[in-house]
């Protein structure tokens, strides 16, 4: 398919801009002006619409295909949430920061306040900030809060501990907050090796970062002990909420012993994934860490109205205003729509669906850890590898059969990993159709592995030469 630039014809006009009702002004001096105009494409509105409509049809999406990407929680994005979010399109954030401006934006300010309260109750934390713009951004913010806490106590701690099964953003975020990383291997029970962890924990460790259930979909029965061990050494505990969809209403990280958490609104709270973003990563903290939260904060004043207050002892700003408000509005709508019982049902059904997947597929696919899973299950394509078929081949075959593949090759501590997270919004009939194809792929591995190596054959392009892309580094089209 051509690029929009290749459809461009010099002189074509697009949308009309507003008419001018003011005099033409003397132009800027030449030394301040750009030479040639930016070479945006010149296409008619019809060509524009056709191009992007056709382009969109080259995507698999939740609305068109089963999309069981493990660790991503690809649940249905309720359309009423879009309607709700759109109501705030015309609200300028700067109004909240102008002297006398707060009273004009009481609606959005109340939403920021209330969604923070909702998230605090769901996670068992004392206060929440919605400023972080994505999960990884939340991780960095949370670790910066921890760093500020230790600094205020005159503690010089250099390390953050992470399990080797952790999402890459955990060590990357801790590194951005100035820490060195200690990685602990996974033990046969499916999570962090407790002996290695105990040995590594000391007065130089600032924090331990855990995901629970972890990236293998396993609930760590020692999680409270892990927090205890950290606290005894004066370290703090960080909870990566990426897998919160498994435990809403059942477990709250704040109750278990976590000091700082983040949640991913675009995962657990059903806001759309947008092709890779935008997300939102609110951070929750226990009382002792509240002073270190980012500035500013939305507060409830004596008369019940909402104000914006500077939070001077904190880590400063991590984003300009209150976070990705449009995403927060959608998440607020989702939580309000479902209510407490609805959220509990979400976790119950998410866990049921994943266990159903696991039970039906474990005959053909290797399970690296034989335990009940929570909202996602991880297989290894190690049996298939014996016939020369890799996890990636199974993934590509699924595409030909109309399913978006599960996550493959993550977590890193499972060879040929296939991570399946169906989510609670999928029906048994959809899952059965997917399971049939997974079983078929396992049969084909024995009978006709070559066909799997060829896949996909039904898409506009087949397997792409990633080596060539990395070596050529062609990231923008000439013009």
């Amino acid at each position, binding site marked *: *398919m051509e690029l929009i630039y290749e459809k461009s014809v010099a002189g074509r006009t*697009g949308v009309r*801009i507003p008419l001018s*009702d*003011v005099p033409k*002004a003397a132009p*800027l001096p030449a030394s*301040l002006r750009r030479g040639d*105009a*930016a*070479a945006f*494409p*010149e296409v008619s509105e019809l060509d524009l619409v056709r191009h*992007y*409509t056709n*382009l*969109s049809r080259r995507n698999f999406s*939740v*609305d*068109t295909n089963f999309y069981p990407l493990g660790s991503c929680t*690809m649940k249905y994005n309720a359309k009423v949430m879009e309607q709700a979010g759109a*109501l*705030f*399109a*015309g609200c*300028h*954030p700067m*109004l909240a920061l102008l*002297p006398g401006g707060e009273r*004009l934006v009481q*609606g959005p300010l109340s939403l920021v306040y209330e969604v923070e309260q909702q998230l605090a109750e769901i996670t068992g934390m004392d206060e929440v900030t919605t400023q972080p713009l*994505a999960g990884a951004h939340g*991780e960095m913010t949370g670790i910066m809060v921890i760093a500020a806490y230790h600094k205020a106590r005159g503690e010089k701690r250099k390390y953050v501990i992470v399990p080797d099964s952790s999402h890459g*953003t955990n060590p*990357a*975020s801790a590194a*951005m907050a100035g820490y060195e990383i200690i990685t602990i291997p996974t033990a046969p029970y499916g999570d962090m090796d407790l002996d290695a962890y105990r040995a590594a924990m000391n007065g130089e460790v600032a924090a331990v970062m855990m995901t629970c259930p972890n990236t293998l979909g396993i609930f760590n029965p020692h999680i*409270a002990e892990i927090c205890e061990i950290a606290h005894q050494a004066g370290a703090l505990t960080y909870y990566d909420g990426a897998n919160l969809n498994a435990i809403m209403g059942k*477990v709250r990280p704040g*109750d278990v012993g976590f000091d700082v958490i983040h949640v991913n609104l675009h995962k657990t709270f059903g806001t759309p*994934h947008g*092709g890779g*973003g935008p997300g*939102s990563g609110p951070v929750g903290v226990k009382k002792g860490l509240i002073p270190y939260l980012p500035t500013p904060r939305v507060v409830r004043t004596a008369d019940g109205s909402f104000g914006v207050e500077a939070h001077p002892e904190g880590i*400063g700003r*991590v984003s*300009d*205003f209150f976070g990705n408000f*449009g995403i927060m509005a959608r998440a607020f709508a989702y939580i*309000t729509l479902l209510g407490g019982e609805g959220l509990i049902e979400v976790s*119950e059904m998410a*866990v049921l669906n994943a*266990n159903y997947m696991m039970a039906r597929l474990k005959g053909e696919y290797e399970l690296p850890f034989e335990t009940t899973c929570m909202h996602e299950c991880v297989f290894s394509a190690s049996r298939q590898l014996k016939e020369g078929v890799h996890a990636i081949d199974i993934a590509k075959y699924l*595409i030909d059969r109309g399913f978006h593949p599960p996550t493959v090759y993550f977590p890193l501590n499972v060879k040929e990993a296939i991570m399946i997270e169906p989510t609670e919004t999928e029906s048994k009939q959809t899952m059965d159709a997917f399971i049939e194809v997974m079983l078929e792929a396992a049969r084909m591995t024995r009978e006709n592995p070559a066909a799997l190596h060829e896949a996909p054959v039904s*898409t*506009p392009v087949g*397997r792409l030469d*990633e080596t060539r892309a990395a070596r050529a*580094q062609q990231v*923008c089209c000439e013009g």
Partner: protein
Amino acid sequence: MGYCPNTPEEIREMLAVIGAGSVEELFSPIPQQLRAKSFELPAGMSEFELMGIMREKARVGGTEIVPFIGGGIYDHVIPAAVDHLAGRAEFYTAYTPYQPECSQGTLQALYEYQSAICRLTGLEASNASLYDGGTAVAEAALMALRVTGRNAVVLDASVNPLHREIVCGYLASLSAGVVEVAPAGCASDLERLMGCIGPETAAVVVQNPNFFGTVADFTALAAKAHEAGALLIVACYPVALGLVKSPGEMGADIAVGEGQSLGNTLSFGGPYFGFIATRKRFIRNLPGRIVGETVDQQGRRGYVLTLQAREQHIKRHKATSNICSNQSLCALRGLIFAAALGKRGFEELATLNYDKARYAQGLLGAIKGVSVLNRESFNEFTLALPKPAAKVVTRLLDRGVAAGVPLGAYYPGMDHALVVTVTEKRTKAEIDALAALLEEALWN
């Protein structure tokens, strides 16, 4: 409730396959003492009740106030086609294009977006978007530290104060130094900026137009930075780039900015997108996702996420950044906006902004006791008022107008200064009304 489709019968069937007696049994690995101590949330409701609540919140959202304010976020027209196309479910309910064969929609759109950013900034390589303008400046500073191996940044204080706070936070975490250089009136103090560049300077960071609205040419600064082995980072306002000299033309090494003004709504603070572009030779040091062009086994052109070895999922703590999500959908809106306006339309839009601002500047500057502080500006300019600007703004908000951003909170000694923003959406009537209101607030 919760969009969970399975019937009690189906649930029973699944439990039988699993070999569990109940759903609760599936949670048995969780010890009782770890169970939630509370989960007090109100009961759920239908779409109808929900929209009632949301509408009530949106009612007091300031949308009736005429905005002559910017602060990095601008009220621009958004063609209907942007909502329509970005609203296609195949775009907004897809995720990160890890499986390129079934994600060519997102991948090609991001490649076109990267190309648009390169053309806009006059540079050679862009990534697939960052979170926002503020974090983009911070990421650019970190990138400069990596490229040069140095540990300090010179930061022009006429860069957006909110962005500077973010930059300082990121750099402090890594114990990198920041030297802030105060502006000279409403312009960058070029002499002092140049004077601060030393052997430990990784980059000089400026903004064009700056927070006061002043437009400048930083070509000489770029040359000076390069002499010392440092980089020039220019933060820019995309719509202004329809008219003003691009960072590439000035010799800048990295351009960043807030992309909101391209097709994204105000939405009380987000989501927006940050953009970053650089010279080809620095491409491996770019943070975030990058889409590259390639071919499949049959020679058909296609697009993939590339240079992933820089990113957190491979390099973990040694990654160029911790970034995972980009702002894909917002970047898509920016791309469609740019393509909808086209090369000439974009230039015309910028010119219209400029003309409207000059008209407003003339009218407001003619009010007794008011003077305009900038020499050259685009669609924002700074007024010196005879009274404290904060009080004037508060009074005018009561009259339904956000007259500008008062600078006293951000720049010591500037509490009589007000930054006024005029976009193409401000009519002559609105501008005339602002002038009348301002005169009244100052002198009546």
